[in-house]
């Protein structure tokens, strides 16, 4: 095929013919064919552009410009026609008849409620400057009792309460051994919380489990005081349970702290009025706390005259039970899906609505 040498008239002729083809195309297929014939790589306008070199030099820019103008114009025509044709014959109704049909779903998932309570508590303490430290579940008797100032005849050391592997090894009954281990390896100041599983050799019933979760905290520095303890705990409770919760501290006993305090807060069931959750007292016990006993510091290799510190601990299940009115502690490790999925839909389990 001999290529025609383009001149102005032939260009306009090609252009007009092409526009007719494009605007008159009645189906996408014919439209596409027209595009290939006129605008394609081997199309007539393109080949015209290619043979422009055969023109005298002074005519080239003019004719070239015309060709490009046509290409642009035809491109727009093509796009418009394409949109028209696809509009009329392509677009289907995306939701035939009923847009309220259930959407396509996958199985939902979520975190275990205990995990979420632990996480929220960790989060609050983390922001207060506590670092997260963990330790082993299976522990030496030394760390679980001796280093924590548990006298040999303390009831907690009774075989009834502790699972033993052998004479020296046991399942930790509290997360406090983590604190001793941490103090052995680190110098004050330090401020840590240790969440984890603890074990008590108790026959399970609705309010007792043989394994459950605890979070304990420890703060040691030059001049940590009971006032600091009350401050931190109150802040935590306000963050977790809401600013309306009132907190009270009353003397109590734990071997590894002195002075010590039991921490109560206003019952979130009745806001202090008295109800079944708080057994009509208006108060519920939330944690134990106190100033670290000098003997514990001695075991850790600290000089009790140069440092002071406080420690506190709370049971996770207890908090979740109180918060959600769960009637049986065994639910948590029971993992019934109908139980678990109830707690999947909210990000924050702490503060009361």
């Amino acid at each position, binding site marked *: 095929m001999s290529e025609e040498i383009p001149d102005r008239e032939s260009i306009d002729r090609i252009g007009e013919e092409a526009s007719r083809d494009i605007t008159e195309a009645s189906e996408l297929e014919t439209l596409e064919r027209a595009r290939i014939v006129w605008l394609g790589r081997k199309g007539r306008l393109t080949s015209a552009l290619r043979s422009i070199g055969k023109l005298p030099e002074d005519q080239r820019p003019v004719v070239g410009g015309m060709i490009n103008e046509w290409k642009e114009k035809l491109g727009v025509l093509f796009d418009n026609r394409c949109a028209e044709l696809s509009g009329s014959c392509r677009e289907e109704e995306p939701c035939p008849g009923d847009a309220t049909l259930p959407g396509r779903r996958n199985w939902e998932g979520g975190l275990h409620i205990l995990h979420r309570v632990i996480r929220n508590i960790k989060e609050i303490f983390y922001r207060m400057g506590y670092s997260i430290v963990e330790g082993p579940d299976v522990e030496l008797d030394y760390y679980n009792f001796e280093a924590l100032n548990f006298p040999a005849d303390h009831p907690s050391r009774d075989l009834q309460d502790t699972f033993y592997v052998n004479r020296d090894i046991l399942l930790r009954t509290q997360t406090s051994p983590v604190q001793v281990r941490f103090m052995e390896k680190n110098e004050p100041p330090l401020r840590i919380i240790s969440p984890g599983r603890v074990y008590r050799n108790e026959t399970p019933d609705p309010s007792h489990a043989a394994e459950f979760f605890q979070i304990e905290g420890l703060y040691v520095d030059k001049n940590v005081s009971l006032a600091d303890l009350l401050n931190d705990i109150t802040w935590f409770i306000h963050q977790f349970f809401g600013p309306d919760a009132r907190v009270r501290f009353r003397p109590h006993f734990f071997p590894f702290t002195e002075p010590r305090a039991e921490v109560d807060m206003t019952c979130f069931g009745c806001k202090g009025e008295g109800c079944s959750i708080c057994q009509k007292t208006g108060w519920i016990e939330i944690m134990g706390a106190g100033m670290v006993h000098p003997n514990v510091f001695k075991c850790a290799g600290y000089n009790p005259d140069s440092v002071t510190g406080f420690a506190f601990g709370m049971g996770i299940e207890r908090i979740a039970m109180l918060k959600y009115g769960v009637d049986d502690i065994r639910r948590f490790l029971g993992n019934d899906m109908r139980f*678990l999925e109830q707690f999947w839909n909210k990000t924050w389990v702490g503060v009361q609505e």
Partner: protein
Amino acid sequence: MGGGAGVKVSLNWLKRYVDIEEDPATLAHDLTMFGLNVESVEVCGGEYTDVVFGRVLECGRHPDADKLSVCTVDAGTGTPLNIVCGAPNVRAGLSVAVAVQGAVLKGGFKIKKTKLRGVVSEGMICSEIELGIGDDAGGIIELDMELEPGASLDGRLGSSDVILDIEVTPNRPDQLSHFGIAREIAALYMRELREPELFDLETGYDFPIETEDDSDCSRYSAAFVGDINIGPSPKWMRDLLISAGVKPIYNIVDVTNFVLLEMGQPLHAFDRDKLGRDGIFIRRGRSGESMYTLDDIEREVGEDVLLITDGETPVGVAGVMGGRDSEITGSTKRVLIESAWFDPRAVRRSSRELKLDTEASYRFEREGDPGITVRALMRVCRLIADIGAGKPEKLHADYLADRELIEPRTITLRTKQANRLIGTRLGADDLVELLSRLQLISVEDGKDINVTVPTFRRDITEEVDLIEEVARLYGYENIGREEGRCSSLFSEVSIVDMRNEELCDRLAARGFAEVITTSFMDPGDPGSFEWGESDPRSRHVEISNPLTVAQSALRTSLLPGMLRVIRRNAPVERDGIRIFELAKVFLQREEGRGLPREELHLTALFTRRSAPLQWHGEQRDFDFFDMTGEAESVLEWLGATKDLVMERIKASEPDFLFEWILKNRPAGNCGMIPGRVLARFDIDTRVYYFDLLIDVFPPGRSGRKSYIRISQYPAVKRDLSVLAPERVTFSDVRNVVKKRAKHLESVRLFDYYRGDRLGERKRSYAFRMTFRSMEGTLDDETVDRTIDKVLAALQNELQVTLRSE
């Protein structure tokens, strides 16, 4: 000095005003902690390695260059060195300083063997400039000492000095001088500060000084010197100027520069006989007016330029640069030395307008000390008299528009407020003591103190400025470190904890229910799973006083407990279950003593339907690849896919159990739990699982180390359908493709078939490869060539062929 945001000070110079025993590094650190950020410490002059004593043996013309000589030099290296030298004074017999190969001269210039116009040169004969000990670049140093050739000149040449480059913040123009820095050092180390010696000037010279607008120039002082004797400055002054980076010119100019660098006050010396009228008038330029400045450039000096005039003719740009026509020359007899305080804004305007930054304008723009003008004149006159550059007149002239400008300010500092802001427990007497170190004189007034602020501290205008000075003097390093004080203590990030939390979130979001199961296990469980005796999962820790036999062992795997969760949730009723647990298992140590090994596992189980019952299509059961897909996603997130190998557990035949190995360490296992095992747990649906040993994967930095650039060019996609022998897995094929295909972005398998139709023990894989380049759009030919290479490699390495049909 000046220029940027810093000041270069010479240690030798500083020592004129304050004793400094500290080594330069200590001084730099202490100054930095004191608020004067030392950006660099440069030791210059005096210390040279590989600069040696040499003697020029012969000296001849360079064959191709008139100005170069070719010398042979004995530098103690055995054979004499051939050195090309450009100095006019080089000649045979001369004792010289030779920088031999390896020497590093001023400015980091390294000496190595080179060719100069075709002649080899094996070193360099040095001039003062190259050694940084002087400013004479005109010729090489002619040494007048007698040493063995090759003897090191380290410590024998010039004066050694240390240059500190100190960042000066815009509020502290008083630090833009050696004396200013010395004042800080004296305060820092509590040492005596020695004031420079002054000439006794008295006011009363009858000399007209007028201003057009007092707000442009509030103070103009002038001293007068006669019997000018132009000549070079003494060596000690030239050395200090060079150290501070200023080229010595001749005495009268040098002393004004010296006082600028010493006290921070810019001075200018006019040839008094060249002032058209004996008087000074400070005014703005007029439109169309122009003058020649010292740099010999004619400049238009319009209304934005503040001028010093002799009443009519401009003789200088105020605070920026003097005029050419009143410049000091060899024939100058009498000079007027200007020491003024110009409005910082006026100087900045002039400097901007003329695009001219000078040492002087740099200081005026930062609002120097209006109280120092006469002292600076006293100092310059002292120096002029001492070095014999002229005879200062006893009287000086001083125009002061407003006395208040030079009155010291008094500010009350409340002790309580200072302690409150800094966190100290200082007494009023402590504050007085601290501030006195900075020449801030104060008197106690009950619990507070009244502080008199000298004019050089224009930055101190209110109480809080003084409190900052107290904190600085007390030492930022000491604040909050007092005995008996609680420390600030913040949380440490636990990467492991963060990783674990994110991992759980990820699985929960992918539709897994998290479960928390008991740490106990039935001692019979390993048997139910048929774990062999060598399997660590068969060596459990036993509780000596268990609640029940079924709780008398600690779990060695999460699987038994999780299977019980499935059982309890009645999978048929539940339709589909997908659960995970991230928890510890307890493994007895080999020796059987001590605490057990606690290993963190991520275990996931899948059973029954892969999605809830719904109207969109058929429900199907979870299958093997649902399980591996989730496992792959977790492994990818852990950043472990690269070195991970998946293998069938050999002993598991006929069961379908597989194991992951990460760098020869077991990283987990997966598969379909055998039906007979499930039966022992009373489960009759298929259960798939994966179990990962999370501790094996590094907790942090498992993701990308750095970002990968994104190509802006389009991708090219190619599909290949290949026929493979039975033993060849898709991961074999993919590895070969990845190794061979340049520009490969991804490989995705979209069809897999295994069957008789293909012939004995054959399988077919169809996959799509995506290619993309960073450099440009890939063309068909390039991609075709790559495909050919891939196919050839598949054929050679795996006997995999292109499917022909």
